[in-house]
Each structure stands twice: as C-alpha cells, then as structure tokens.
C-alpha cells in the first residue's frame, strides 16, 4: 500500500532533487568567490616576490609565513570549502601585509647604505651648487637625488635600482672634483653622515671661505658618521 498520493510522491522526488542541486550550487558559489579572492592574493604575492628579486635580491631579507598560514594552505589545498578558503584568505591578508612592510624596510635600508642620507646629501648638493668648481656636478646630483627621494616609500622596481646607481655615479664624480684632498675628504664625510671636527682643517676652512660656503655647514654634537 502506498503511503502517499501520487501527486505528493511526485513532488517528493522533485523536492529531493532540487534540494541536492541547491547544495552544489552553494559550493559553486563558494568556490567562485574563493577563486576571485585567491587570484588577488596571488597577484599581491607575485608583486612582492618580483620586487624582492631585483638587484639580485641580496638587499631583501624576506618574510616567513606563519604556521597558521601554512596550515590554511594545506587545508584549502585538500578541500577548498567555504570555511577553509575563508580561513586562508584571512591568513594571506596578514602575510601579504607583513611581507610588504618588510620589503619596504629592506629597500630603504639598502638605498641608505649606498647613498647615505639622501635628504642630507640633497642639502649638501644644494650647498655645493654655489661652488663654481663643482656647481654643475652638484646640480646634476641634486636632480637625481630629487627623483630618488620620490621612490623611497614604494616597493622598488628596476627603475629605482637604476636611479640609485646613477646617483652613486654622480656623487662619485662630485667627490673627485673636489680639491685639495682635505676638502674632498671633509665633504665626502659630510655627504655620508657627517665629518669630525678634526677633518675641519685649515684648508677646508679656507676652501669654504673662498667658495663662500662657510655658512652652509654647521657643527652638531655627536660622533661623525664613519666613527
């Protein structure tokens, strides 16, 4: 004996079938959203990775993911359910932020190591722009240092690395042009963080006075840069 009328049995089948279909549809919707989110993470990490590899990559210290990130990656790789993907998303967001910050720090540190304080160097170049013998070189340096300063807070790219090399070259050329030697040593030290009083020799003072640059320098307390 049947337990339900035919019209009800037919509906029962339809409902059952429709209930399954709905479940699949929900998974599709979850995976679709996850696919979009993960694609975004992929692009971000790819950018960070490319930036870290510039200049041979030695200037970059790198960022190691947390265990949770790796667990999430593992879980999602196994079953990219809505919850697993959601967990992974949150872990990747955190990792990407950390990795980017680290990369920016590494870049600033690397540029400073090669050029000194770009801002102070920019001031020195401005001061030497009035010294006839090095005015042109100082002006060129100053122009390059200005562009270099604009990329200090961004992830480095190949152009940033090229600009750093060009500034380094023009600084060297400027130092070469300074005579006598004491002046060259003094100004090089100033350019790289400060010269000691000992380096303020008579020749130096005379040169500064002769080139009317004695008012472009100051004495501050503290050890010189190379000390």
């Amino acid at each position, binding site marked *: 004996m*049947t337990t339900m009328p*035919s019209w009800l049995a*037919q509906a029962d089948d339809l409902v059952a079938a429709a209930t399954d279909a709905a479940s699949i549809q929900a998974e599709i919707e979850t995976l679709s959203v996850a*696919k979009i989110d993960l694609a975004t993470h*992929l692009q971000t990490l790819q950018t960070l990775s490319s930036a870290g590899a510039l200049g041979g990559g030695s200037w970059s210290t790198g960022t190691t993911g947390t265990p949770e990130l790796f667990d999430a990656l593992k879980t999602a790789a196994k079953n990219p359910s809505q919850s697993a993907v959601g967990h992974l998303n949150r872990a990747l967001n955190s990792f990407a932020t950390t990795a980017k910050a680290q990369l920016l720090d590494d870049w600033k540190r690397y540029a400073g190591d090669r050029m000194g304080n770009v801002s102070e160097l920019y001031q020195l170049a401005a001061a030497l722009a009035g010294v006839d013998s090095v005015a042109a070189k100082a002006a060129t340096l100053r122009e390059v240092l200005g562009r270099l300063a604009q990329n200090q807070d961004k992830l480095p790219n190949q152009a940033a690395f090229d600009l750093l090399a060009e500034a380094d070259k023009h600084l060297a050329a400027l130092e070469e042009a300074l005579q006598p030697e004491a002046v060259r040593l003094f100004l090089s030290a100033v350019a790289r963080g400060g010269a000691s009083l000992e380096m303020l020799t008579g020749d130096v003072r005379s040169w500064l006075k002769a080139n009317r640059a004695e008012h472009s320098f100051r004495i501050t307390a503290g050890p010189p840069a190379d000390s």
Partner: protein
Amino acid sequence: MSQETMEGFRCWSAETVADTVFSDIGALASDADAIFLAAHTPVTLDRKKGTEVDVAASGEAQVLKALLGPIGDTNRNTLIAVTGESGSGKSHVVRWVNAHVKRDDERFRVLYVPRAIQTLRALLHRIVTDLPGVEGTDLLDRVDAAIGKSSPGELKDRLVNEMCLALNWTIQEQPPGEAETPDEAQAREERNGLLGIPDDQGRRRDGLADLLGEPLVSKALLRPGGRLDRLVASYFDETSRRDDSEEAFGDEDLPIRAPGIRRSLAARPDMAELWDMVTHNPADALLLLEDALRKAVPATLGLRSTSGGDTLDGLFRRSREILKAEGRELVLIFEDLTQFGLVDGELYDQFATAPSKDIAPLRVVFAVTDGAFARMDKTVSTRVTDVFEVGGSALSDPQKFVGRYLNLVRVGGPRTQQLWNSAGHDSSKPWMQNACLTRNEGLPCEFLEKCHESFGKVKIDDLGDVGLYPYSAAALRRAVDHLGHEGTPRLVLDECISTNLTEADARIADGTFPHDRIDDRFDRRNTIGRQVLIQDVPNLSKPEEDRLYRARVIWGDEKGLPKGIEEAFALPRAGTEVVVVPPQPDTPQPERLGPHPLEPLYQWERGDLFADDEANYYRNTLLAMVESRLQLDQSLVHVYSGRGRAVLAGLFNQTSFFFEGARGAGAGKDSVRFDLKPTPENVRLLIAARWFREHGHFDPEQGNWPWPVGRDAQELMVELETQLDTWAATVRRRFLETCGGSAVAGDAVGLRAVALLAVGHDARALCSTDRVLNCDSRPVGSVSDAWADVQSAANQALGLKTDEYVAEFAAVRQGAKGGPQLIDTLELEAALSRWLADPESSLTRVQHEGESGLALQAKNLLEQLRKCEAGERTEIESASVILDDNLEGLAPSTVGDRALQIGDSAKNTGLFRPADAWGQFKRAIDVLETHTSAVKAPVVAPGVAGVLSAQHVARPLILLSKAVTFVVKCIGQTGEECKRVGGTAGSVSELRDEVRAQVGQLNILVNQLARKD
C-alpha cells in the same frame, strides 16, 4: 257622518290642515286674519326698551298700545322692534297687531307689509300701491325696466360696476368716533384703508374697487351660487325667503385661497399689500363689499332716479307730507324688516326723518331677528323707541298651543272665516267655536266623552275643553319633546300639526296608524322591553306588532291604552282589558335604586342608532364574558399573555360583536364575528349581560337599578349562559383552527430542530424535545458560501423563543402564579418526528397556516433552503470528488504528515511556494491532521431534506476538501519551483580544482617570500 265606533274616525282632514295651518306667517294671506286669530296663542313679550304703559295687557296688546298710544304726538316718530329667534313667533305678534289696528281710524293711515310678500317687485308694488297718497308708477316702471330688460349676467355686471363706483366715490371714510376704543379705531382705519387713497380727482386708487377689477377677484364675485348670483336670481325668480336666510358676502366670494392673485399684483405693490390685508382679515373687506352692494342695488335697479323721477325715499316723503297736510300719521307694519334687504336704506332714511310741520310722524312696528337687530345701522337702532323680545311663551303650554290648531283644523277655514265675519272682525269677544261641542251641526261630537276620556283634552280660554285627538297627552308631550330645544312654535306647527295630522288622516282611515314614520317624529324613549310590553297580544304580524308597540309606548307611555285609542287606531287587543305586566314604570322605586340604564338598548331595539358608548359597553361586556369561558388552558394554551393573547386578540375582540345599527366596523374575515340584530332575543341577552356584569347575580331584589319589567331572572340567566357557551365554543374552535393550539408548540420545536440542522447540528442529537430545546443554537463548523443564506435564515429562526411557545401552547399551568409547570411532550415528540422526516412540508404548512411569528421564520427559512439547495449539493459533491481524487483512499492525516515533511524540506532550501503561504499551508495541514481515518463521501438524499440532513457531515467534508485543495496547490507550485532550480547547477569539480591550483601557487609564493637566512 255618524258612526258606531271611533275606528277610523277623524274630526279633521288633510285639506282642512292645508287650508288653516301656516307655520310660516309669510304663507298666510294678509287678509286671513280669521285663520290667524283663531289659532293664535297669546305671547308673553319681554319689554327690553320703552315705557310700560299697561301692565295688565297681554304681550301683543302691549305692542299695539306702544304703536298707537303716541298717535297725536307730532313731535316724534315711534319705532317698535319685535325681536326673537327665527320661528319664535315675532311675526305672529306683528300680525296680531296688524289685525287689531282698525283701518277706519281717521288719525292714521296704515302700510302693512306681510311676510307673504317675498320678492322685491312685490314689495315695491305693495309700498307704491298702499302708501297713502302716492302713485309711484314711475318707480315701478324703472324697476321693471332694470330687471326685465337685463339678463342675470348683465345685472350682475352692473351691480359690480355700481359697487366699484360706490367704493371709489360714494362710500365715505369713517371719521373717528367719540370715545372710540383703540380696537374700534384700528377697525375704522383698516376699513378706510381698504377704500384706497384718493387721487387729485378725488377717485380712490389702489383700493377695494381696483381689486374688484382683477379678473380672479371678479370671477369669484360673479361665480354661480355666490352672493351676487343668488341676489340677482331672487329678482328673477319668485324665490321664497325666510328671515333666517339672511344674505351677506362670505369668504367664498373672494378668491382668498386661489393661487395667482399675488403674482398678478406683483407689479403693483400697494395692491399686493391691500390683498394681504384682505386675506389676513376678510371680514372687514366683506362688510365693505356689503356696504357697496347696498349702494349698488338701488342704483342698478332704478330705485334712484337720475332724471328727477320717483324714488322710494321720495315716495315715503311725499306720502308723509300729504298725510301731514291731512292731519294724519303714517303707520307702518312690517312682519319682517329683513324683507327690505338691500333697499332698506331708503326705509331707514325715513325712520331717521323726524316729523316736522310738513312731515307726518311715523308709527312703525316691525319684526326682526335678534341677529339682524344687533347688526342694524346705528342711525336706525338708536331711534327705536320700543323693543319687545319674544320668548318661548307660545310653547309654555303645548297642549293649549296645539289645541287651538286642533280646533281650527276641525272647524275648517271657511267656517272660521264665517264666524269671524259674524263677529264683525272684533276679537275683543269670543268668536271662535269649539268643534268638539259643535261639529255635528252645532251639537257635540258623538264620541266626545270617549274621545276626551281616551285621548285627553285641554281647556282653552274662550273655547272650553278641546280634545287632543289624535294625540293623547303623552303622545303630544313626546311629539314636542322630540323636537328638543329646537322646538319653536313654527317647528311645532310644522311637525305636530301639519305633518302629523295630514298623515294621520289617511293612516287612521285605512287602519295603519300609528305608522312607521311616527318613529321619526316622537320621543320613543321607553323603560320596558318591546316583547314585555306587547306580550299579552301574541301572534301578531310584524306591522301589527309594530303599531301596537308604537301606540303603547307613545300614546300609552308604556301603560295600557285606553279603549278609545285602541278603537280609533284599530289596534290589536288581547281581550277586553289590556294587561301590562307589573310593575308599571312609574311605580315608585326604592330610593336605593339608580336610574334605569336600558333605555339606549330599547332605542336600539326600536331601530334607532345604537349609541357608541352603549354599543362599546355591551361589546366589552360580552367579550369579557366569552373570554372567561374559553377554557383554552384545557387545550394547554395560555391566552392571558404572550402569543396566545396576541392570537386571541386578533381573532376575537371588540369588533367581533357587530351590532346592526351601531357605528363601528365589524370584524374581518380572519376574525370571529357575531352579528347582533336588534331582535327581542338579543335585547334580552344584552339585558342579562348588563345585569350580570353590574351585579354578579340574577337576583332582582338585589340590584342597583330596577329589574327590567316583565323579565324572568332564571330565563335571562339561562339564555345568557347558553349563548355565552355557544359563542365561547365558536371562538375556541376558531382559535384552535387558526393557531393549532398545542400544535403551535410542536411547530416551534420542529422549526427549531430544522434550523439546528441547517446550522450543522447532528440530527442524531435532536431526537427529543428536550434535546432540541436545550441544544446550543450556535452554528457547528464553518458554513459554505452556498449555504450562508440558509444559515442566516436559520439563525433568525433560532432567535424565536421556542421555550415560550412550549410554555404558552403546550404547558399545564399550575401554582400560585399560574406559571407553566408540566409539558405534554407526547404531541411535541410526534411533531418533531414529522418535522425531521419532512422538513420541507412542515415549513410549507407553517408558512401558510402557522402562528404569525413561526410562519414568518418558516417562510424565510424555506425560501433560503430552496434557493441554496442545489448550490450546496454541488458543493458537497465537489468536495467528495476533490477528496476522492487527492487522498486516494489514504487518511487525510497521513497525507497531511507527508505533505508537511515535503513542504518543510522545500522551505529549508527556499523552494516552498507560494513563498508567503507557509502559515496557511500549515493550517491546512492541521485540518488534514484532524481526519485520522479515510474519508467516505456522504450520500445526499434528494431534495431540501437531503441537503439539510447531510449538513452535519458535509461541513467538515467541505472544509477538508478546501484544505486538501490548498495543500495540493502549494505542493504543486513547490514542485514546479524545484523543477526550475534543478537545471541551473553546474560542474563543481572543475572549479574546485582551479581553487586548489591557486592555493598551490600561493604556497609557492609564500615560500619564495620566506626569509633567506
């Protein structure tokens, strides 16, 4: 002629009556003094004005003295008014005076105008021809020309024109009078205002005259039957007139209520205002019109010459001048001053003209009604020297008044004239014969002794004993009493002499007196019933019985008739002596007894109209007596209140007793009606009813009023009891036929049972009266749309208080308060069975034959049942089909459970449809859940009864079918939704792989970004 007995004897004839009796003095020839004086009854006059000169003189003699006494006084006129009501005899007084004014007296000349002169032409002719010393043919010619050469219509037009002239020019405004009261001043000003405002030519404008020019006004004034029409007609016709037909303009002579007057006067504000005054107070305008007519008539009729010819005033003046020259005076005797009507102005002018050295004095006596005298022009009334008012003295002794005429008609006109002539026209000595003593060639009547003994006689001065035949003293009294307060001498003559004697002549001759017309002319009040009064003369024909009864009441005053009366009228007799059952009505009654209340009943028996109060008294009495015998409580019917009372009141009430000859409608065909004719049997019955109602017993010695003469108490009691029982049986039978008695209660119970079925109750629960009465009347379950009107009608029927019907029509009442105590359920159960077996027939029957309250509800319910039966049957059948198709033999609860599971699944995945109908779906499931076993379709029998009986099971069935239908609908729509969403699901595995690949790449990148140390 001489005869043995008085049978058929008459001492007068219709001819002698016609020759000698003139109730209206106007009809008596002016030279008929003999006839007049022979029957004249001296009148006592009340002297209202003037000096009494001869206390001993009779009334008429005082007038004569007042008229002739001043003869010789050349300084003043004498005006004597004899006043009184119409028919009081004032003209007779004047006529008497005229008869006693000697024409051969050289001191004066007499102009006598009798009432016999009834037209204006004759009046003028009498004045012109009898006025001493003048001819006046010119005046008569002008009047003849005015009337003879004009049509009535033309004469009316001329009158209106003359009235306009009078209003515009002649009639003067009234000046303020001395000591005028504010009301009089206002009346005068209003009158003057009606005349209008004089223009620079002196003609009045915007007054009543201009109003007469309005077509609607003149049309009303000239209308047929109006004042002017009647006046003109009197000039052309020999129309008789009486002093009580005084003419004057009335409201109907102005179009006061006719529409259109104001509209036609709209352009003339002053005229419109005048019309408002007229309509507000027409009396002033009508009096002014009368004044104008008074001016217009002489002018129209040529009484006033414009070329120096005779005028009435001129003739009088000339006559007085001539008489003055002769040393004589002018005596004017007018039997009715109002004869002069609209030409009295000229006469009044003479009254106001005092005697002088050229003008002879006037000695005038005239009769005038009280009303006319009061309205008389003050210029005349103030000059009246003596006023005598006639009272009712002529009738102070009706026997003498009538006796003179009886003698006159016996003597006859020619003999009377002969006697008057023999007496030398001298009334100072007795000159008239007594017919009773002289009718046989100077010898007494052969029946004198018997006649006077039987009919009675009256002693009259100068005549002696005059027989009253054909009256008796009682008959004459009843004849005069019948006239009541209106009985003036003229009326007494008309009725008691002219009419009665004329008819009696022929009726006595052929032995049919007193005939039926006597009933209308005599007071027939009696205190003894008809049958009692004539019971000593049995086996009479109806006419003979009527004659005998009539004679014994009227001539015998309900006593035995003297032999002479029976003989003269040829009445049937019982034997040698008439014996009337004692006691006689005039037997002194004990003082404790009140007045006899049966007179109206006897009058009704005689054929008079039954007085309203009396008829209602007997109706109420019989009604109460019959009601007390209905004993409907034996049929378990309570008729003292409630529906039983209402039914009985409609069936049996005051109108059920219909008295022939009484006012008031009789009961209609739906009520019991007992016709009561004024038969002796019914009179006995009503006497008995009245006696018993007012005394509570049939003891003649213990009554508050005299026991009716000749009635036997036992017989009356038995007759009353028998008749009341008969009537009560009739009423009881009709009552039970009409309302059915206890069947009403059965019908009430049956109707309630059917109504309960109609609202869904189970017939099995309505198996007894008790169950039906105590069943909660609220509907069971929900009603279908098709059956809603039936339920409404059933609810109304259930509003009837069935228990009251049972209490009033099927309960035994006992106890101190008479409340219903026991119910006879046997008949009620049987009725209930019949109702439930065939409700349609029962409803049909009650609709037509039942108590009104039940009938109304039965009709209503039956109408709705018949109207809704087919629809409800279809509804039930459809429900059965739905359930059969959708439940497929399963219990509804089983189907409901499964449907709920499926619906719930669908709802969880958002697939339930309609999406907002989940609550309704659940309620429908609840309905299914209440049916735990498989449903069987009910078998609905044919007809109203089938649907009615199936109602109890049909209601849940229909509700279930609706629930199932809704569930099926929801499940169906949900399935459709499932089908729709099923095709949209794509491949998930590919997507899943892609995500996994991304995760792998991310893993690589994370590793690439790891610290390098």
